[in-house]
């Protein structure tokens, strides 16, 4: 089975912080990492490959340093990595991103399965998976929490998490899935994988290689414009209510009404 796993390099949540004045993420000097959900997508791809054969291709669109994320994917067991990087790709919203990713997947030839994380932890849109499936013209199942490939190696039984439970879904490849963290536990890198990843060549595809229309990538191809970003202010106050339980409940309800919560 030929599997493409889309991965995004995001700032490490352990060290990221906001510039309150400018309303932006401080990215300088912050370590980047693979979007955590994407690690679960990669693990799912590796597990399917280990059983069904084929190859796992890690695909990432981003600045040149996103190559590090692809090397990490290789150290975990991906067979190869492809970086989509071009100045023209900068400022892409999810519409332009899915266009660019779809061009790359078309260029890779027949692909059986595309795996994405449920959402990226920086943008949090959860739109790229479904948008990409639409462009590729293949079925999309989001928020997958369990996955079983049947013996025909074409049919999959999936559990999709919903607000009040889950759906059981049968889907045939080719398909695109976005996965939940509960699907699996990502493996550790291996030493051989790390050594291989260090030496691996990672091709970089830009507008030209993809044969992309310049007006459909990056800022030019993005109808979404971020007007401003602000960091909400959190104010923590503490008040201890005393007295009889009944009195405390009354006082609490009054406070909540006052605050507009009730």
């Amino acid at each position, binding site marked *: 089975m030929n599997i493409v796993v889309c991965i995004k390099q995001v700032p490490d949540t352990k060290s990221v912080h906001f510039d309150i004045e400018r309303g932006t993420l401080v990215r300088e000097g912050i370590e980047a990492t693979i979007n955590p959900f994407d690690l679960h997508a990669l693990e799912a791809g590796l597990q399917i490959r280990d059983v069904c054969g084929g190859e796992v291709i890690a695909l990432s669109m981003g600045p040149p340093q996103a190559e590090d994320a692809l090397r990490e994917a290789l150290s975990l067991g991906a067979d190869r990595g492809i970086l989509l990087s071009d100045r023209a790709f900068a400022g892409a919203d999810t519409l332009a991103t899915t266009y660019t990713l779809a061009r790359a997947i078309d260029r890779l030839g027949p692909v059986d399965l595309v795996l994405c994380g449920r959402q990226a932890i920086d943008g949090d849109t959860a739109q790229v998976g479904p948008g990409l499936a639409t462009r590729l013209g293949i079925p999309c199942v989001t928020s997958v929490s369990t996955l079983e490939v049947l013996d025909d190696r074409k049919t999959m039984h999936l559990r999709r998490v919903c607000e009040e439970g889950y759906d059981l879904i049968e889907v045939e490849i080719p398909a695109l899935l976005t996965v939940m963290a509960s699907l699996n536990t990502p493996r*550790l890198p291996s030493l051989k994988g790390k050594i291989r990843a260090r030496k691996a060549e990672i091709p970089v595809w830009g507008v030209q290689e993809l044969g992309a229309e310049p007006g459909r990538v990056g800022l030019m191809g993005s109808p979404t414009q971020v007007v401003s970003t602000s960091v909400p202010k959190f104010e923590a106050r503490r008040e201890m209510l005393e007295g009889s339980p009944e009195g405390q409940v009354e006082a609490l309800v009054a406070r909540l009404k006052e605050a507009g919560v009730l």
Partner: protein
Amino acid sequence: MAQVNYFLTEEQQMIVDLARQIAIEKIIPVRAELDREERFPAEIMKDLAQADLFGLYIPEEYGGLAKGCFENCLAVEQLAYGCIAVTTTFAASALGGYPILLFGSDEQKARYLPDIASGRRLVAFGLTEANAGSDAARIQTTAVEDGDYWVINGTKQWITSGGEAEIYTIIAMTDKKKGPRGATAFIVEKGDPGFGFGKKERKMGLMASSTRELLFNDCRIPKWRMLGNRGQGFILAMKTLDLARPGIGAIGVGLAQAALDEAVKYARQRIQFDQPIISFQAIQHMLADMATKIEAARALVYSVARTIDAGARDFAKLSAMAKVFATDTAMQVTTDAVQILGGYGYMKDYPVEKMMRDAKVLQIYEGTNQIMRNIIGKALNKEYAKR
């Protein structure tokens, strides 16, 4: 602030990073539970296998990474930062594997090393007996030829990974009257007829490591399982231990570093007499001695391991120095860490009491630190006789 530069290659740094990642993500979160329940860390062994660490010292043709004693030290130091019971289980597989690597025939290597390198099968080393500890030449387990078989009888004691390992390299007497020259090494597999395990020992520390007896009751193994030449068993055991001892030193360094980290962290936030206790010189001087000894131990262990990898011969003295200094350091540093944490240090809610209980075994196993000093002393006598 600057750290000592040990001039690691990119690959050596990868080994450090990976082993550290495993210690932090896989070992530290479960170490207290493994200790409390005396549970064998089977899951972590799978993680170490997946990470290729079991193959570090094994040649590439058998699926390993063809690294040396130094890389092994780098890996176990980081794992020991997490838990030395887990690390001992990992390191015991190398102790059992070295004899096959050093003395095995091509057929034996081809048969066993790939499984050892991949971590599919754990190995254990069986030398110690009830009456043969420091005086290893007193072993009483016997192996007698019987047609195409060897028949083994006797009991090995305190064998790390006993019952859990699949492959055992053991030493038995084949010619009792020849003394140490009458010992021979054999490979025994779990499931061989007449081979069984005694009860699980109850220990002071090192709880997650399985320590059991090996019972041989007319155990019949095919002739080809003899390892090395007949009568070479004692030399094989000593060469194996010489090669493994820097690793024990490295385990001591990793454990001591973990204890120091806990002690400094605590001393910075514990307020007594209106100030953090690290502001008291009494505490500062203890921490300073701990940190200095750890760095000295690390430098010694690394230097000895690199000397071995550079092809040194007759390095028993150096191995013994690395083991004795680093493990005495671990004992002292973990004891002082408990002291700095005071009453909290004595409680199981904090990790340093386990570290102190665990540290003691480092001064005992793979040759007591008294035997280490014997080795160093004898070597000095020999060296100076030549001058």
